[in-house]
């Protein structure tokens, strides 16, 4: 019988090794899945992990990796701050959409002005759009004690409907005969968010994501607010004792994560996507949750995890095109990554011990679980 015993201190070695082990296990399990689908697993793994970085067409794929990783990192950094504090914003996708819509609307209101102020204005409006959308679950939670997970998640579907309505009616390009979608923001100089260095894929959003990583790292490890965030997540009662106001903390977490998701949406809509359209929502807001956990909720980890996830996106696309891998298999593959990470994660806090098999019994109030984790006295 294998039993888990709580470690007196979380193992440092394991907390660093866990993501690597999780990636390795994902490769094995994913390979088996690909084999079961009748595709050579080695070829599939090579297409996903190797070709985009060092393959024949890597010059194209490498830029794409940053394009995908940028919004993932930007959103995940914001989410991670909340997750560290035990505040669960699951609705980043909705905030991402609303940021894009409000940002685009703010810019298009001045079309066709060529003022240089338009892009900064759109950036502010984009952040505000995400922030305001995020304040809905935050205020409902603080005021009425609603569950922020449900409310923020449900608001994603509301946002998707707002997106559809914007694309076909009030933000629709009046010059596009019958087609849905706004004017192309990427081709309008005042609003465009171009590649800053040709061939890298790095646009303003990627730069902002890097800044967010640095800022979040400093916040978490140097600033009092970051300390209080971590404290609230570790021990809510101790946080209140330390003087943390739980309601204010919820609001702050949703503000930050909403604004960053809104920014990600704005940079996406002005750059790679180019316009507000019904197919704008691409799932970055949900994938960012995986990225946040894969990065162990630490900003630096998220930077690496975002790049890895960007790689599986780009590589997965390539594998789908070249090897006929179903897109669903790529999603399952990404899901496995989170699954294995969470599973391996247990080893950072618990060690596995072997005991002789006891009779299987339902959990009694006075069983092993209650008392054996007390450590050595």
């Amino acid at each position, binding site marked *: 019988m294998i039993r888990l015993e709580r470690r*007196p*201190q*979380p193992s440092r070695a394991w907390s660093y090794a866990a993501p690597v082990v999780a990636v390795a296990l994902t490769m094995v399990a994913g390979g088996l899945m690909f084999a079961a689908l009748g595709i050579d697993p080695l070829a599939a793994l090579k297409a996903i992990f190797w070709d985009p970085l060092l393959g024949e067409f890597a010059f194209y794929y490498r830029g794409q990796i940053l394009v995908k990783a940028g919004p993932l990192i930007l959103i995940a950094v914001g989410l991670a701050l909340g997750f560290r504090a035990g505040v669960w914003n699951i609705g980043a996708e909705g905030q991402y959409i609303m940021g894009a819509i409000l940002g685009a609307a703010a810019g298009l209101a001045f079309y066709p002005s060529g003022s240089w102020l338009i892009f900064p204005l759109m950036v502010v409006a984009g952040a505000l759009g995400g922030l305001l959308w995020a304040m809905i679950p935050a205020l409902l939670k603080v005021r009425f004690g609603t569950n922020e997970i449900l409310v923020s998640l449900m608001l994603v579907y509301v946002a998707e409907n707002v997106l559809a309505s914007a694309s076909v009616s009030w933000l629709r390009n009046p010059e596009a005969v019958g087609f849905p979608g706004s004017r192309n923001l990427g081709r309008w100089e005042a609003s465009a968010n171009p590649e800053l260095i040709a061939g890298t894929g790095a646009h303003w959003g990627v730069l902002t994501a890097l800044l967010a990583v640095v800022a979040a790292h400093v916040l978490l490890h*140097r*600033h*009092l*607010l970051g*300390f209080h965030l*971590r*404290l609230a997540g*570790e*021990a809510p*009662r*101790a*946080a*209140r*004792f*330390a*003087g943390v*106001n739980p309601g204010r903390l919820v609001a702050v977490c949703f503000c930050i994560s909403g604004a960053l998701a809104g920014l990600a949406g704005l940079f996406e809509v002005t750059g790679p996507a180019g316009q507000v359209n019904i197919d704008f929502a691409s799932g970055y807001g949900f994938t960012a949750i995986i990225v946040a956990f894969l990065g162990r909720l630490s900003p630096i980890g998220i930077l690496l995890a975002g790049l890895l996830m960007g790689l599986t996106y780009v590589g997965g696309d390539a594998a789908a095109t070249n090897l006929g891998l179903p897109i669903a298999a790529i999603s399952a593959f990404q899901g496995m990554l989170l699954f294995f990470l969470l599973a391996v994660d247990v080893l950072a806090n618990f060690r596995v011990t072997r*005991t*002789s*098999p*006891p*009779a299987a*019994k339902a959990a*009694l*109030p*006075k*069983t*092993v679980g*209650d*008392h*054996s984790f*007390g*450590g*050595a*006295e």
Partner: protein
Amino acid sequence: MTDILTIDGLTKRYPGVTANDSVSLRIRRGAIHALLGENGAGKSTLVKAIFGLVKPDAGTMTFDGAPHAPADPQAARRAGVAMVFQHFSLFDALSVAENVSLGMEDPPALRDLAGRIRQVSEAYGLPLDPARRVGDLSAGERQRVEIVRCLLQEPKLLIMDEPTSVLTPQEVDRLFSTLRKLSAEGTSILYISHKLEEIRQLCEAATILRGGKVVAEADPRATSAARLAETMVGQALRPPKAAAHATGDVLLRVEGLSLPPASKFGTPLRDVALELRAGEVLGIGGVAGNGQDELLGALSGERRSAPGTITLEGADVSRLGPTERRRAGLLAAPEERLGHAAAPAMSLTENAALTGTVREDLAARGFVRWGAARAFAERVISAFDVRTPGPGAAARSLSGGNLQKFVIGREVLQRPRVLVVDQPTWGVDAAAAAAIRQALLDLAAGGAGVIVVSQDLDEVMEIADRFAALNEGRLSAPVPAADLTLERIGLMLGGAHGMQAA
């Protein structure tokens, strides 16, 4: 065959520590046998081995003539070992009978069980109504549920871990007569406690552990408490002494403080009033669950109360949060060390910053000065002799006593005007408890006011200048501690407020 349990050379190692080093022990049939030792001496590990919660690395146990190597508590129970834990594992929302039934391997129908509970509880002087909800029971009654649950198994050996820490003196007397009756009927009892006087009253043999080894076998009836304590700690103990001091102006005034309970099974505070003067230690006694948590929360600022209810040095602090109250000089140390007073997974440095930010100037323009926090943690560690590898260690890696020293030290070193502590020496070994009490007395001697909320009456009697009892959220009028007897305290705890109008 006079021994019920024989342990020979039992050894259990954890990474970095040998919890039990070749421990040998014999418990006679029908004896009440004390297991003594400081926190970290290895008592819990030894008991867990007997109860099947820990698998020893070496050594043998013989129970009732047969080899004893239980794989789990169920096996130990089948062999005839029962245990009453220090922390109860009962469900508040269920009845007594339902709780007992949940702990049984093969529970009979609830109605039959209720009958048996009544029968056992009467036979052993443990009055208990099987139909009552556990959430409504006092700590003493909850303990009875645990004891009855054990007795229903008709154990040959009953292990009791710190059973009296939650009881009033009258309840302690009742428990002792139950234990004596059991012992007379041939049930052996392994009794773990820090309270040496109790052990001298009750036990006929004692095994003293220190650092995982048996350092002495003693007859507690023939050995003085001081001698037992010294053997346990390995050094001579100095009882805490209050420096002579005069009490000064009123520092803290609480008037008409009422608060609804924070949770369903919490206790409301009802019209609490008290005055604390500079240089004074006010002891607040009471059985657990009578509003201690709520009172501490109201004083620390975790819960706000109506304006004008709490005044510190003339300023109304009722509406201020914990941070502002700390700035004003009102500090607190809650009972629950892990998760309330300290964040378990965080380092001692971080835990030092948890309350020290304002008064120790650990933050500048919103940024934590981790260097200063570390230095503060190191000061606490050295001033209070906290045994730990260093300020980087996680709070949960410390033993209970060491963490408690850290928590109390953290507040004391911040030079509070008023310090409120709840159960400052709960589960702490004798040496650490003496150090903590001395620090509180020194603090008062330096002109601060100290409120000690404690269920340990010996502690309250030892250090308090005045004593008040907390009962169902009401605080009795304080009386000078010098005038008190244990009987009178017992009555006050029971809620007989009218009796000390004088």
